[in-house]
């Protein structure tokens, strides 16, 4: 009880500090999320045309995905130094897998009959993609983006270990100064952020699913 009281007290007295970290965290994640979405979806679309390219690219992102995050951050520090840039690069590499994979799966699992009808009616490759394949794959793509967003927000908490801003700063400071309330406050806010983002995307996903079933 004492702990929870202290936690509340801390969040209240240091609200400016936490709001600033929350905003930093949000900006850091958002930049990574935008880059991942653009790069991931584009890559997914491109590899959907060739099965060989797909297995290579998905295999590669799978391997990258298995590298422990601390090791990944550490590795990039030696190349791009400490700070936000390095954090974003690492976040992007992690987040690509679910987006590329889901885009690829979504596009390639569109019913052959539907594709044949669209091609047979004289769709250009671009029309086939933009009017048929992509809209039909959208629910699967959104599902991939959703898990990527939650993961990126969570992972951005580790970014402060390499000097980036965000709520990881509070967690890191709590751990190093043996200040448990600080660690927990930072962690809770990360979780809250991920939870809200997931909820918003969930609503969007549901809306899309209703239309395309």
């Amino acid at each position: 009880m004492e702990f929870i009281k202290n936690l509340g007290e801390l969040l209240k007295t240091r609200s400016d500090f936490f709001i600033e970290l929350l905003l930093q965290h949000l900006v850091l994640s958002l930049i990574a999320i935008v880059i991942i979405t653009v790069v991931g979806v584009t890559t997914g679309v491109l590899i959907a045309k060739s099965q060989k390219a797909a297995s290579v690219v998905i295999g590669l992102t799978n391997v990258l995905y298995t590298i422990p995050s601390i090791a990944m951050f550490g590795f990039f520090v030696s190349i791009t130094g400490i700070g936000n840039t390095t954090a974003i690069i690492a976040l992007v590499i992690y987040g690509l897998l679910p987006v590329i994979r889901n885009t690829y799966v979504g596009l390639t699992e569109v019913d052959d009959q539907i594709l044949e009808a669209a091609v047979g009616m004289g769709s250009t490759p671009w029309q086939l993609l933009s009017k048929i394949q992509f809209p039909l794959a959208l629910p699967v793509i959104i599902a991939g983006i959703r898990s990527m967003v939650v993961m990126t927000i969570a992972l951005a908490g580790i970014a402060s270990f390499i000097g980036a801003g965000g709520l990881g700063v509070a967690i890191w400071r709590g751990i190093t100064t043996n200040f448990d309330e600080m660690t927990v406050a930072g962690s809770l806010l990360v979780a809250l952020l991920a939870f809200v983002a997931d909820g918003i995307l969930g609503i969007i996903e549901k809306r899309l699913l209703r239309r395309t079933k």
Partner: protein
Amino acid sequence: MIEFRDVSQQYQAGKPIIRHLSLTVSQGEFVVLIGPSGCGKTTLLKMMNGLIKPDSGEIRIKGKELKAWDPITLKRNIGYVIQQVGLFPHLTIEKNIAYALDIQKASETVKKERARELIQLVGLEENYLAKYPNELSGGQKQRVGIARALAADPEIILMDEPLGAVDQINRGVLQDEIIRIYQTLNKTIVFVTHDIEEAIKLGTKIVVMNQGEIMEMGSRDAIVFHSKSHFADDFIGNKGFLSYLNIVKIEQVVCPFNGNVSEKEITLWVSAADPLIVGIRICLENGVNQIGVRDGAGQVVGAFDLGCLSRLKF
């Protein structure tokens, strides 16, 4: 309209799907391609809109060589209906029907107008336009599939077993609809099926295929009665004959009453629009040689007896 000259095609070397095939489809014909599975009928159909390219031979569509056509333009000039319908599940029925116009960048008003026109043509209510494909039954979906193929007003329509997945009752109704649309719009139709009854009913020209070759080709009468190939004879056989009796109308064989029987003595009647099989059945059922025939308005038009059948002219 469509001309194949010595066309061959194989997916794998040594396994030909189409062998040295020649075929001409003229303007306004309703050509049915029929044969056992794997005979190459669907491949032949898909060559007509360039979905499959031949290995050798010449194909001309509307007088122009296939290679000279831009593949996209060619497909836009030909309507295409497939078995599983392939409606776009994320689009409303209206957008589905207007898709061919949409990809050719027609205006919204034109698309809306055309969708409304076509939904009526295929016998569905206008309120279906706002629905999604998953709200429709199999038969309704296929009606939409046909409407969609007609959207850009193509002269040629290809149908690949369009009624294969439709139940027996709806199939008959849809066959009648297809005949009606064919007769009203005066299109050239190429239709693939493995159902003999369907082929006899729909085709003005029936092409029997086996192992990538045309075994027999001709009108309904020629295919049922004067088949020259052994294969076509076996394949069409009595099933084809039965379908024939089911389709040809009594009005084609009406004859005068036999001299000593007067109209008043006749108690059994059929309608001139009934198929032959109805008349034959009534005769057999009642053990009579002759029954009367009336037209739609109830006027007596003559008699039907088994001897009349010889009046069929091939």
